């Protein structure tokens, strides 16, 4: 099952799901509910649970295009045996409360979603910029901002990684004051 972390909603997520042509179910986390509950600040991330609802792998970054991970996942699905690599990288983290800045960043992120729905794109971008200043390591907010501000770097042809790198450097200077 896949979960789209997209503030902009189903319409931006659907073309990618359709292009992937998967037979799995697709969900939408437009309000970053999972990101917030799990203290996640980036994608892709895997939540891998067994028949009893227990995690077989610490919740963390995964990449299904990585052959090693794909092999480990297939092995676990087949046998129920947790791969050594996953055990080695286990982290028994507790979900934690958001800090005051993180909580404000999340509130502004939610507000941006409402503004965007009302067609107030400039106001939404302003809120997202404040959210990035409050929680600069939160790439769920930061890249979401980029995708709304400069959609052509994301939704036309291939994702423009050179632009992303340049944008990150610009932002460190302008938005984050060289933090």
């Amino acid at each position, binding site marked *: 099952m896949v*979960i*789209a972390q997209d503030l902009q909603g189903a319409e931006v997520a659907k073309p990618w799901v359709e292009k992937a042509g998967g037979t799995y179910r697709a969900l939408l986390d437009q309000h970053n509910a999972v990101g917030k509950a799990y203290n996640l600040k980036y*994608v892709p991330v*895997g*939540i891998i649970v067994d*028949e*009893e609802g227990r995690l077989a792998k610490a919740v963390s970054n995964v990449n299904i295009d990585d052959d090693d991970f794909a092999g480990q996942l297939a092995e676990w699905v087949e046998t*129920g045996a947790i791969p050594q690599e996953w055990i080695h990288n*286990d982290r028994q983290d507790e979900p934690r409360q958001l800090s005051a800045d993180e909580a404000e960043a999340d509130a502004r992120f939610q507000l941006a979603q409402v503004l965007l729905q009302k067609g107030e794109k400039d106001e939404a971008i302003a809120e997202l910029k404040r959210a990035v200043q409050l929680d600069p390591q939160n790439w769920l907010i930061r890249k979401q901002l980029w995708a709304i501000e400069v959609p052509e770097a994301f939704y036309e042809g291939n994702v423009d990684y050179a632009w992303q790198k340049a944008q990150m450097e610009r932002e460190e200077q302008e938005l984050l004051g060289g933090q």
Partner: protein
Amino acid sequence: MRLNRHWKIITVAFFVGILAVKERGYGAMQDIKVILDDQPVALKPAVRLDGNDVWVPARALSEVIGAEVKEVNGQWALCKGDLCILLAADKSEDGDVYIKLADVAEPLGLNWEIEAQTLHLTWGQAVEAGLGIGQRPPDFTLPDLYSDEPVSLSAYRGKKTVFYMWASW
């Protein structure tokens, strides 16, 4: 044990199970009472205590914990959702398979202890909340991208499930 428990337990249950059926013929076992989540439950045939080992009738246990005993690949297995634990092929004189509780309790999420000739069973208290291996992650409910139908992580109990978080950006 937890790390690749299913295979190990399948093997252990199979061999120990056969051994037990043989030993039972010598009549050294004791019938004991069962309490599940503070409620007495009647298991027939009775649960038996043999030294420190607790032997439970697979079919009767299955009924009280919402599992079932069925044939898998020509062998008896105790199944709860997608999770199946293969059992000894031999049957007792009561027409039921006895299994060693220690071999099946952990994968089923059952805690147990023996106190005053009574078996106390409780559900899942050993599973703590968290984001690491063996822990239970926070539940969530999200809409299906196409149908809007709400879908919860917890609804997939009984199946191995992978949630892969991504974004269009």
